């Protein structure tokens, strides 16, 4: 609808010898007064505008400049004008507007076909456009070939080339193809028009493959399957290979938790005692053990209790015979304690009656019940230890070996000393204890044998609290007897006096109550290569610990008594206990 001015659409030279300009007339021709449009041109070195020499040759609305009018590298300007006005103007030089004609004489020949006959190669040839004088080198052309299957929409291109032939590889003989070519001057960017389409049909020359219409696609699934199989085979072969290096390279061993000093083989072979002995050397383990052990009873003393303050040190209380006689359970006055002592009638705990707990049978299950069992232990001192006490006092802990090196103040290590006798080197330290001439009072029950015997752990230090001393007689190994003296054990365990004087028994792992850890016990056991303890023989000197056979409430525990031949030095125990390892050694 808008009035469109005449415009020069393009100027083009097909061979760099002539050129033509084309324009659009616009809407002006529809007007009543026909306007005459002229094309004027001017070379750069000229002054005047000249009119187009040929309006006809190139068609309507065109102007053709033949060779005589064409100077290739000379700038031209053309303008579209009528009498009065100039509609459009364009300036260029001929070498810039070269757009060659399409190639001619396209043909193809068969190069070869595949063995299956499904694919074929062809060679396409053509001639350069006739107008372009390539033979004299006036113009250099390059060609671009495009092809596609007949029913496709997108053309595939080949790279522009200078030669007038091109091969096409791997065409499907069952399909028909179309080919077209266009050319451009070598240093230009724009291509000329496309040539006529060349049709390629293999069936025409008798090569068409009728039976092979199926296309063999790349069997991806086969690739995947075989790849997975190969990978699996490789992995399996690596895993099974004897080459440790290769194995380690591909499958690096996952680091397993390792505790220093412990041979994983120990764990495998089930020698728990040895492991325990080793573990006893590690504080952390001991701490953990104690924290998890249900039988560890932590005595908490209320420091603000005036009664307590008025009391003499627990140690003294523990160690004094009066105390022993008067109190069955020491330090049971901790109201904060969650455990009631069956020995103290004051404690209003009703969870269990003292009688009940102290009547605990030797059933191992009962032992494993939480606090009740602990109270059983607490009741141990109810036995007539008085008699044993003197024996405690008389017993010379020094007589026991003193040699074992103490690795820590709590003397866990001595138990682990394999060289020495199982007696802890606590003895040496005990000598330092002024207040504590006797030994520890408590022994922790570390384990319960399947037979129902309780295995005491070597106590590391005696906590003042409830003195769980029992009569510790060397000879009392009958079933009805109480267990062996904690005092002896305590004697064997280094206790620092100031620690013992602490009224506050805090809940700390192994520190509590002078319980003996299983480790310390078993350390010695392990050193001797013994397993769970067995009661010592009555003839031989008793080791530090023995296992509890039964708990007779409320009096205490019954220790196992077996006749065990024991080397003297091992049973050089003052407190009448037999260490478990000794027992184990003794036991067949």
């Amino acid at each position, binding site marked *: 609808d808008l009035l469109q001015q005449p415009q020069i659409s393009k100027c083009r030279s097909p061979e760099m010898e002539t050129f033509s300009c084309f324009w659009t007339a616009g809407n002006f021709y529809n007007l009543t007064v026909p306007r005459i449009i002229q094309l004027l041109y001017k070379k*750069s070195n000229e002054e005047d505008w000249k009119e187009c020499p040929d309006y006809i040759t190139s068609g309507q609305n065109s102007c053709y400049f033949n*060779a005589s009018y064409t100077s290739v*590298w000379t*700038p031209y300007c053309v303008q579209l004008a009528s009498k009065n006005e100039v509609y459009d103007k364009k*300036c260029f030089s001929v070498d810039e507007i070269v757009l060659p004609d399409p190639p001619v004489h396209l043909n193809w020949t068969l190069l070869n076909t595949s063995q299956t006959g499904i694919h074929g190669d062809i060679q396409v040839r053509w001639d350069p456009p006739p107008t372009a004088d*390539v*033979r004299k*080198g006036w113009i250099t052309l390059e060609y671009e070939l495009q092809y596609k299957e007949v029913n496709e929409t997108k053309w595939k291109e080949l790279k522009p080339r200078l030669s007038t032939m091109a091969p096409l590889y791997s065409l499907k003989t069952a399909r028909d193809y179309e080919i077209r070519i266009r050319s451009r001057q*070598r240093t230009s960017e724009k291509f000329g028009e496309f040539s006529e389409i060349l049709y390629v049909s293999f069936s025409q020359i008798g090569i068409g493959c009728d039976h092979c219409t199926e296309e063999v696609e790349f069997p991806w699934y086969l690739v995947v399957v075989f790849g997975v199989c190969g990978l699996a085979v490789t992995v399996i072969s690596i895993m099974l290979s004897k080459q440790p290096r290769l194995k380690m390279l591909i499958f690096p061993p996952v680091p397993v938790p390792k505790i220093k000093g412990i041979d994983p083989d120990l764990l495998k072979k089930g020698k728990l005692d040895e492991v325990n002995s080793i573990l006893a050397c590690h504080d952390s383990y001991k701490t953990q053990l104690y924290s998890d052990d249900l039988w560890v009873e932590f005595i908490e003393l209320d420091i603000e209790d005036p009664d307590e303050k008025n009391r003499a040190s627990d140690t003294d209380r523990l160690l004094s015979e009066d105390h022993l006689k008067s109190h069955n359970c020491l330090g049971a006055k901790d109201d904060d304690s969650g455990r009631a002592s069956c020995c103290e009638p004051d404690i209003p705990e009703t969870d269990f009656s003292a009688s009940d707990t102290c009547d605990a049978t030797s059933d191992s299950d009962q032992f494993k019940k939480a606090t009740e069992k602990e109270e059983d232990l607490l009741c141990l001192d109810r036995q007539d230890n008085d008699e044993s006490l003197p024996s405690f006092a008389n017993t010379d802990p020094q007589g026991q070996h003193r040699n074992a090196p103490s690795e820590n103040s709590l003397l866990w290590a001595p138990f682990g000393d394999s060289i020495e006798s199982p007696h802890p080197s606590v003895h040496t330290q005990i000598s330092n204890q002024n207040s504590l001439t006797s030994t520890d009072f408590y022994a922790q029950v570390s384990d319960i044998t399947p037979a129902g015997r309780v295995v005491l752990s070597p106590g590391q230090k005696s906590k003042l609290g409830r003195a769980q001393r029992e009569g510790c007689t060397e000879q009392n190994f009958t079933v009805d007897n109480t267990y062996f003296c904690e005092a002896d054990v305590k004697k064997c365990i280094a206790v620092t006096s100031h620690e013992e004087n602490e009224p506050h028994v805090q809940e700390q792992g192994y520190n509590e109550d002078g319980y003996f850890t299983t480790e310390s016990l078993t350390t010695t056991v392990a050193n001797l290569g013994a397993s769970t303890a067995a009661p010592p023989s009555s003839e031989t000197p008793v080791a530090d610990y023995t296992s509890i056979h039964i708990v007779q409430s409320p009096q205490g525990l019954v220790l196992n008594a077996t006749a065990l031949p024991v080397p003297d030095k091992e049973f050089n125990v003052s407190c009448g206990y037999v260490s478990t390892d000794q027992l184990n050694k003794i036991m067949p």
Partner: protein
Amino acid sequence: MSTKGASLKGLLLVTLLVSHMLLTKEGVTSLPICPNGSVNCQLSLEELFDRAVKLSHYIHFLSSEMFNEFDERYAQGRGFIAKAVNSCHTASLTTPEDKEQAQQIHHEDLLNIILGVLRSWNDPLIHLASEVQRMKEAPETILWKAVEIEEQNKRLLEGMEKIVGRVQSGEVENDIYTPWDGLPSLQLADEDSRLFAFYNLLHCLRRDSHKIDNYLKVLKCRLIHDNNC
């Protein structure tokens, strides 16, 4: 002996260097080179023309691209195109303007013309390379192309002089030459004017390189292939 070892090493080094030199190929294409020390080493005329055509094509290709890049980057919207009808400093040289003239001119004259044009461009190319660097934010590609064109132009000049020496029967006339005085315009303070000067120069370079490329191809087809390329 240390000296013996040193001399052996030196011999080995020399051998390696010589073999390397023999194996490496230089130039735009892999054309045979004369072995060292040969006095009568002569490339055939065909090989000389091949090299020259390749060089001229390469130079035209670079200058065409450089012009397009410059046009895109600096000349848009400035109306330079309208002023494209300008004169190059080589316009004073009489060069064949169409195929007819190129066909008719004697090959020696044509060679001389080519030489003249190449010499006339020696100076502007040097300054173009240096002045392009001062252009505001000159892209690396334009800079590199300017330097490359200047270098290749020198080599083409040498090659043409060799060809002329072979082909020319008589004396070598060396008077075809146009001086270039466009340096001040490249250094104008006004950015528009300066950029137009560059545009002009690059346009002329593209045109003249196309001319030379064409002339050489015509000569090659005429002299080597007997008008049957």
